[in-house]
């Protein structure tokens, strides 16, 4: 076998190179070089995004274990870009006393999760997929538990790792039965052999739970709120956007590549979980006080909306899904960046009441936050409106009218709790006002990018057009 194949997987390889560079740099850099560390990583992750996009040709490697094509490359690019934003926002937290000495570790862990996600997307063989998933979730656990002197962080970490192990055990169990019935682990062969017998349904469900855990769909979502709340804010952002997005993409790919013969079954599963996710998450979110916890539930319901795009399983659906994830990423990143800055300033967890009268002290941040929230709630002319509309459209086109209707009714509830924050910021008056928040330069850059995204992604249809032209998987 020729080892040239390894170098054909350009994104992964370049990612690994960056990974090694950082590793070494972490070991050798001191003083001035140390200060260059963060900028370097930012640049390299941004670079990575573009490197990823260089090769959009369709090809398979390792006897069909690995596949790459335009759509997948684009998804990877989105993830890489998200990572870039995360790194930008991480700056000040990483400089702080408790974390500065393990700055390098953070980057390394972050990037290794990214590697895992890359493989998740490209895998066309369950072994590779499994490794990818684990590679994505194990370092994530470390990241969640990164603040090792904070009780919550550790608690969040343990909850995350244990439930993820539980989930992957279930998933593997399911996969094992698939293997038993079909005798292969290659997606292609498997889908040819699947007949939809009960044992395979069992396998399907088990597999779905594994991915559903990472997407945090109800009822596999219980870990989400706790881990989001406990984890360091930057990590939460990463968790809520990048790993969720990767999982969604993976689910879509696997459902189409493997479970195509069982479409009606998995559509049923998604149907149920979607309704459950959106509704339950909305109900839970209404009463949350801690913003991060609140964002966790909002992200659960958002995941439900993304599923609306997946359920159709069509190309339009894929386009809508990718677009939704992109839009959702910028909005969420903006919010978490702001939360991070506030926490940094006031040294305690941000509650909804903390934001009272936020407008008087920080009009600009408030405006950004408002736009981001509106985008999440799907208010025009912000990108969120478009992504939601397209998602609904694809689901409606696929014939899931009732589902769309339920989701639409739920948007009203979601609007309600997003408005609660807006209300706190603009209308409520604070007993003790927040200080004027000073964000770091990096954070500001990321905010600028996010806002640009929130405003432009919808209005400039070219983005959507590009995604639409990526072609099929």
């Amino acid at each position, binding site marked *: 076998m020729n080892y040239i194949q390894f170098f054909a997987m350009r994104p992964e390889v370049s990612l690994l190179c960056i990974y090694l560079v950082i590793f070494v740099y972490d070991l050798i850099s001191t003083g001035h070089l140390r200060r260059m560390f963060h900028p370097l990583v930012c640049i390299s992750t941004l670079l990575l995004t573009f490197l990823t996009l260089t090769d959009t040709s369709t090809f398979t490697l390792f006897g069909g274990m690995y596949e790459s094509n335009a759509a997948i490359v684009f998804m990877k690019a989105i993830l890489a870009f998200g990572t870039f934003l995360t790194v930008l926002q991480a700056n000040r937290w990483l400089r702080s006393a408790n974390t500065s000495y393990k700055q390098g570790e953070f980057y390394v862990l972050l990037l290794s999760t990214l590697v895992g996600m890359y493989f998740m997307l490209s895998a066309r063989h*369950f*072994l590779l997929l*499994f*490794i990818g998933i*684990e590679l994505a979730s*194990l370092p994530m*656990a*470390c990241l969640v*538990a990164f603040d*090792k*002197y*904070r*009780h*919550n962080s*550790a*608690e*969040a*970490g*343990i*909850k995350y*790792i*244990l439930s993820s*192990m*539980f989930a*992957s*055990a*279930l998933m*593997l*169990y399911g996969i*094992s*039965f698939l*293997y*038993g019935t079909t*005798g*292969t*682990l290659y997606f292609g062969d498997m889908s040819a052999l699947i007949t939809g017998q009960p044992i395979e349904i069992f396998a399907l469900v088990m597999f779905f739970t594994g991915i559903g855990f990472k997407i945090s769909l109800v009822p596999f979502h219980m870990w989400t*709120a*706790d881990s989001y*709340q*406990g984890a360091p804010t930057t990590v939460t952002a990463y968790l809520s956007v990048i790993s969720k997005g990767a999982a969604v993409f993976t689910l879509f790919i696997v459902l189409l590549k493997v479970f195509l013969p069982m479409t009606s079954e998995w559509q049923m599963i998604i149907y149920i979980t979607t309704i459950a996710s959106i509704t339950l998450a909305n109900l839970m979110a209404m009463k949350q006080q801690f913003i991060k*916890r609140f964002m966790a539930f909002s992200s659960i319901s958002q995941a439900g909306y993304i599923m609306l795009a997946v359920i159709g399983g069509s190309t339009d659906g894929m386009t809508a899904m990718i677009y939704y994830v992109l839009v959702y990423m910028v909005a969420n990143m903006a919010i978490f960046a702001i939360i991070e800055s506030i926490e940094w300033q006031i040294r305690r967890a941000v509650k909804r009441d903390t934001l009272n009268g936020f407008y008087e002290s920080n009009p600009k941040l408030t405006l950004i936050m408002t736009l981001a929230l509106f985008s999440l709630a799907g208010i025009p002319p912000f990108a969120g409106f478009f992504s939601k509309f397209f998602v609904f459209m694809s689901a409606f086109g696929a014939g899931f009218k009732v589902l769309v209707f339920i989701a639409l009714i739920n948007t009203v509830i979601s609007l309600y709790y997003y408005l609660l924050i807006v209300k706190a910021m603009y209308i409520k008056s604070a007993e003790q006002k927040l200080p004027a928040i000073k964000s770091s330069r990096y954070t500001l850059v990321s905010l600028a990018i996010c806002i640009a995204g929130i405003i432009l992604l919808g209005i400039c249809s070219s983005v959507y057009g590009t995604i639409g032209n990526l072609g099929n998987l």
Partner: protein
Amino acid sequence: MTIPAEYMLILSAVLFFIGVFGFFTRRNLVSLLICTELMLNAVDINFAVFNAYCHPDRLEGYIFSLFGIGVAAAETAVAIAIIINVYRNVHSIHIKRLKNLKH
């Protein structure tokens, strides 16, 4: 004489659900960890069995179980590390003490 596949599968299933049961009932983080290990091992057995009995011509199952074992080890490592971290913060690894984050 050979053991029929069903027995193996039943064994693995039993093992798996012992793991699940233990996971639901034990109160000590380490034992929770052990239970997850049980579940993963059950999976490994499954793969091996399917490979040996149903599809002896190829080796995917065995390889998968090998990887499974490896990954399980890695997970355990991470989990133990975090558990230690928990102990540092809470001075206990009893599950009841981990309820700061709820509702």
